[in-house]
């Protein structure tokens, strides 16, 4: 993820250098990209269309929740999306922890670890950032 972002930045810079006349346009596009609004969500901030999600949107949602995503967050977010693809549902805490244990490792498969990353309701918060529906089976 970090690499992809870095590459993107480099591309933008090189284009800017080579074509000075396009600098303004480039800057405009870049700023649009970053100030992009979060796609339609429900009243609780969950995406209405799952297909609207991408990593950029995830960053935006996280930001609106006052969070900065790190590699540790991304690991969980991607795994959560894998869970959804496999089972067609957003997991509650317990199954999420179990799934992490199966695919990432014991160190991460602890609710305290998830709470450190995503706050008091990690299953809900992580689902929101991952662009998935609210876990119906956790209140």
């Amino acid at each position, binding site marked *: 993820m970090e690499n992809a972002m870095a590459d993107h930045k480099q591309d933008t810079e090189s284009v800017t250098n080579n074509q000075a006349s396009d600098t303004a346009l480039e800057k405009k596009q870049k700023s649009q990209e970053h100030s992009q609004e979060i796609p339609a969500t429900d009243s609780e901030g969950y995406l209405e269309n799952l297909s609207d999600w991408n990593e950029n949107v995830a960053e935006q949602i996280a930001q609106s929740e006052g969070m900065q995503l790190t590699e540790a967050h991304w690991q969980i977010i991607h795994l959560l999306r894998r869970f959804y693809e*496999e*089972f*067609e*549902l957003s*997991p*509650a*805490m*317990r*199954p999420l922890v*179990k*799934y992490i244990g199966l695919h990432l490792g014991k160190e991460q498969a602890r609710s305290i670890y998830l709470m450190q990353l995503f706050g008091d309701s990690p299953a809900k918060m992580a689902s929101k950032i991952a662009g998935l529906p609210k876990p*119906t*089976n*956790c209140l």
Partner: protein
Amino acid sequence: MSDILIIFRKPPVGTSWAREALDLALVGAAFGQKVSLLFMGDGVFQLAQNQQPDAVGQKGTQAMMQALSMYDIDDIYVHNDSLDTRGMAADQLNIDCQPITSKALPGLLQQHKQVFNF
């Protein structure tokens, strides 16, 4: 004594009974209840492999059923006579189930504090 037994008795397509029963199972388990499932009657059709509900524009429960073990729901029973009369085999189902005889059914219900029927 386990907490909850959920009985699945309706065929999988056309109504939302299967999904609602499954939702209840997952909610119960997420709240730390010990949940068991019993498939009987036409409910055993929910266990058929290769269901393609999207062919009639519906979302099935097959993927969700694979998540049961993630929720620690491992006591899953299927009534063997119901399978027999419907020409289904216990080793060709979409999830691992324990066959149960008619004779053992009353005992199974008595072992649970609460029984829900769908």
